[in-house]
């Protein structure tokens, strides 16, 4: 059934891989004008100034935001589509490994964008991310320093968001797609969708503290897991196990691979339920209607 949905979509529209590539390109291009006005030492002030005085700049920021969200969304659908076809076996071992790393870095580049807005949500996300990195056994502090730096400054994260991770993801996409530009039709679709979303749902900043802070949509399930499991190291361990299982899919025997995929899909569905529970059914005191 899901396979027929993918076939239906691919025949009538562009492939999810092409759409993700186009979204990535739009996110990169729309990020350039933002990087000019963004001041890493006064991040919130510079973004506020942009929102208040430069309507076109504010529009670019919203396009940057929405194209980023669509990039992640279409990438995830693209991954699910190809896992359902067992296409991971057709890829060379090195490329598969780089693609898995690029997927992980895609989440990082999205999260770094969320932190770089430096509003209340962004600062909390920085604290939590730093806290989680520090829980890694033996290398935690060093990992935190390499990714976030050793202070509250956003300088290093800005460099990773702008250059190191974006460059790596871009190169891996080029290697995977074997083409320098996305299909024109995908580009048109994504430009239209990002522009429309930017006009309909422009992105602001959360400057006042609210009773309940939510992370970005793709980490709300993780936020819920962190509420249930006291020890962050256990959460980090579980995430690493899932990532390890995902990475090893390419080398597994078909029956083992099939069951691992079913298990990962079940985890994904459970993650979705946790996300919905947190998003829709938790109040400010963290009481939930369900669990």
């Amino acid at each position, binding site marked *: 059934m899901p396979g027929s949905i993918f076939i239906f979509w691919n025949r009538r529209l562009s492939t999810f891989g092409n759409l993700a590539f186009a979204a990535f390109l739009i996110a990169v291009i729309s990020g350039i004008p933002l990087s000019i006005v963004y001041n890493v*030492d006064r991040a919130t002030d510079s973004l506020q100034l942009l929102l208040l005085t430069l309507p076109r700049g504010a529009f670019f920021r919203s396009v940057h935001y929405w194209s980023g969200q669509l990039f992640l969304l279409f990438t995830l659908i693209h991954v699910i589509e190809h896992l359902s076809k067992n296409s991971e076996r057709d890829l060379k071992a090195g490329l598969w490994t780089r693609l898995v790393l690029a997927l992980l870095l895609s989440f990082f580049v999205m999260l770094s964008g969320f932190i770089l807005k430096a509003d209340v949500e962004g*600062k*909390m996300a920085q*604290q*939590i991310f*730093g*806290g*989680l990195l520090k829980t890694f056994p033996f290398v935690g502090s*060093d990992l935190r*320093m*390499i990714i976030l*730096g*050793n*202070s*509250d*400054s956003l*300088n*290093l994260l800005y460099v990773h968001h702008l250059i190191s991770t974006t460059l790596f993801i871009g190169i891996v996409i080029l290697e995977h797609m074997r083409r320098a530009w996305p299909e024109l039709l995908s580009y048109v679709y994504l430009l239209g969708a990002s522009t429309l979303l930017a006009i309909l749902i422009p992105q602001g900043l959360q400057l006042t*503290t*609210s*009773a*309940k*802070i939510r992370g970005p949509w793709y980490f709300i399930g993780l*936020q819920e897991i*962190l*509420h*249930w*499991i*006291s*020890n*962050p190291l256990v959460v980090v361990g579980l995430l690493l196990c899932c990532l390890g299982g995902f990475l090893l899919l390419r080398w597994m025997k078909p029956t083992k691979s099939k069951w691992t995929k079913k298990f990962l899909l079940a985890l994904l569905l459970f993650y979705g339920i946790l996300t919905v529970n947190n998003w829709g059914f*938790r109040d*400010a*005191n*963290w009481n939930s209607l369900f669990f």
Partner: protein
Amino acid sequence: MNPITKSVLLSRKRFLQISAILFSAYPLKLLFDVSKTEPGSSGRHRQQILPLDLPEGISFHGHIIAVQKKEEVVFFSADCPHLGCQINRFENDQLICPCHGSHFSLEGEVLEGPATKNLSLLTYTTDTAKRQHTVLLPT
């Protein structure tokens, strides 16, 4: 070349792969060293000045929670001991973390997880002439 020698020696491709990995370790070390000297790393606040006349009850001051009870004042770190979120909510005599929902009493004790440690009690000095408290923050 006999089979034994072939299995012991590295192929040229394998040698280049290992060399590339070893060389990539150097930029990683360089990144680590550079991140240590990142600007702003020494600018972290170690203390915060608060007025002597604090409102009765709970008040939030960034990284500090002040609990004023008549003549006595106690300062707690507002950073949640779970993952460092800033606690900003007080309801039903409980302090609540906005990120993962830990609950704490007015004495800073954990009432409900995920946090397992109590809130850190902060040391402070009071200058009655300047009418201010100087609260020391953890590094």
